[in-house]
């Protein structure tokens, strides 16, 4: 894995002629998604765990940044992802491929759409690298002193926002959501996602996130 193959630096400008969607997508595959290798998946779609994890990571990133929704749209333009994610509604539809959402679309997420979400998540995560480090350090310090997260304002704010986003958007009737009914369990999930997001901010963060999404899913 070499430096010129990874990172957002490798994303180059390209023609975004919307009338030639397939051609633009293919071109995007050769530039923006360079280094993201297609795993051997049946039907070339993202499995269930991938859809859930991608959506939850974006949920955590939204909880980190109040302007995350606007930053996502800005990111779509900066990263030239419009050929894959056409609009805000399309992004909402892609995120609703998470089967645990209240308004799950029961649709599949193609590998190209999954890659676009990975690029977007890493873009947002890199903007929040310092904040994530601060919050993780604060969590370690609080745990070492046997203090709750309420003693750190920013950490408590992040956890509260995440709990709110999670409870309002996930379907509480699903069995997979049952373990996250308590605030403690949701806090643990939020901190776990924070650690995962930090690992995605590195030089090869995009490749690491993409490959980990298919951990145990390939033959």
């Amino acid at each position, binding site marked *: *894995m*070499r*430096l010129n193959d*990874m990172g957002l630096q490798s994303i180059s400008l390209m023609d975004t002629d919307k009338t030639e969607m397939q051609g633009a997508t293919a071109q995007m595959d050769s530039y923006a998604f360079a280094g993201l*290798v297609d*795993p051997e998946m049946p039907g070339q779609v993202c499995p269930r765990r991938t859809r859930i*994890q991608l959506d939850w990571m974006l949920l955590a990133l939204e909880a980190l940044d109040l302007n995350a929704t606007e930053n996502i749209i800005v990111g779509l333009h900066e990263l030239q992802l419009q050929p894959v994610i056409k609009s805000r509604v399309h992004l909402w539809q892609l995120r609703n491929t998470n089967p645990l959402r209240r308004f799950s679309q029961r649709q599949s997420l193609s590998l190209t759409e999954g890659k676009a979400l990975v690029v977007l998540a890493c873009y947002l995560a890199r903007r929040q690298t310092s904040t994530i*480090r601060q919050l*993780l*350090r604060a*969590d*370690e310090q609080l*745990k070492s002193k046997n203090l709750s997260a309420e003693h750190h304002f920013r950490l408590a704010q992040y956890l509260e926002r995440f709990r709110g986003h999670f409870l309002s958007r996930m379907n509480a009737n699903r069995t997979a959501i049952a373990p996250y009914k308590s605030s403690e369990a949701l806090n643990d999930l939020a901190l*776990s996602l924070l*650690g*995962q997001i*930090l*690992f*995605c*901010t*590195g*030089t*090869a963060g995009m*490749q*690491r*996130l993409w*490959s*980990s*999404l*298919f*951990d*145990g*899913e*390939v*033959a």
Partner: protein
Amino acid sequence: MPIQRQYSLPDCVLTLDGLSNLTESAAGTRPELSVLTRFECYFAGEKAPLVGGRELLDSLIAATNTCVQGCISGVKSALKADDSKVQLQPAKEGGGFDLRVPAALLFQGTSAFSSTEEGLEKPAVELHLSAVQVFDLMEAVDQLTADQQTLPELQVAIQPRSRRDVMSTQLVLEQSAPIALGAASVAIAAAAVFFIPAPKVQSPPKELQTQPSTGLPVSPATAPPKTGTSAPVLSPTAPPDQSVTPAPTPSALPTTAP
């Protein structure tokens, strides 16, 4: 030509000392470090760095890659840990990560970790790392492997683990649970049945055995077949040999017709 390369992050610093194969390098170009002679890994907050050679570097990169992959995906590896290699795993309690470096991979006498304490040599160095320290280690490793002028043959295989590598432990756990439950149920049932006394078989009194020859009516099934000229009648009480394949006779045909 001796070369030193340093990959410095806030909580982790990797230092590589080595030599270049090329005797002459173009002026102004960055020489290629192709032979590693010494490798140092320093974590912020620790007293001394881990010092070793190429084996330590390769093992540390592999352990970091495996650990980070498992952390992002949340899927645990089924592969057994090799005590002769560096192990980096999430701590079982209290968060953070546990790094275990075998003493055999460290240069003796050059690192504070490899020194003996009270005459007893440690088999391995164990450190507790925070998530931020592990991230910095990962980032330093990624920068090192992305650097084409430092050990160009060094590669990190970032790829999804196969179903076999992550499922084997889950399968064992999942499969052993019903087996254990079944075996336990059988054992409990057997233990319960063992204490139930076996019922005594009461043989009927001898008087009842002798009575049927004189007083009890004889059932038609056991009665001897009648011998006569009349046609046999199909009835459930007829003898088995006659009810299964009754002999068709001209007098019996009208009775079976609709």
